[in-house]
């Protein structure tokens, strides 16, 4: 009895670990795509300076915030209760 329970909890642990890993991978991919898209949308491609100017900085903040909203809207439509994170 006890052994069977142990096995089950082992399996559960593993599955949760597997899911945590997927979740992590998902976040990493989300972050990479977000970084890429906002770089494209906000940063002047001529790269005349090595600093981000004020306009670029506020564009980045708003871009991240809007991207986040989009993940929430889509998450809601897909019927997941949790926030995307």
């Amino acid at each position, binding site marked *: 009895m006890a052994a069977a329970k142990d096995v089950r909890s082992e399996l559960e642990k593993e599955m949760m670990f*597997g*899911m945590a890993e*997927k979740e992590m*991978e*998902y976040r990493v*991919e*989300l972050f990479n*795509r977000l970084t890429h*898209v906002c770089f494209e*949308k*906000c940063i002047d491609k001529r790269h005349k300076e090595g600093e981000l100017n004020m306009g670029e900085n*506020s*564009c980045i*903040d*708003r*871009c991240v*915030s*809007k*991207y986040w*909203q*989009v*993940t929430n*809207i*889509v*998450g809601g*439509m*897909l019927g997941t209760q949790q926030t995307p994170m």
Partner: protein
Amino acid sequence: IEQLQMRDSLRMYNALVETCFKDCVDTFRRKTLDKQEESCVRRCAEKFLKHSMRVGMRFAELNQGVATPD
């Protein structure tokens, strides 16, 4: 294989978000989506899901060698 499917669905989710964000959001004067952007995102996501279901069906038919007229 289950893990692959799960990874796949998470990737699909990420691809959907990126596609619809790119298509619908282009101005960054505010940090929240305006009404128009939000409804564009909703319609885009709906279409993306329907699109990918249709692609999946056609893809499965071709995998099974079902011939269909032009």
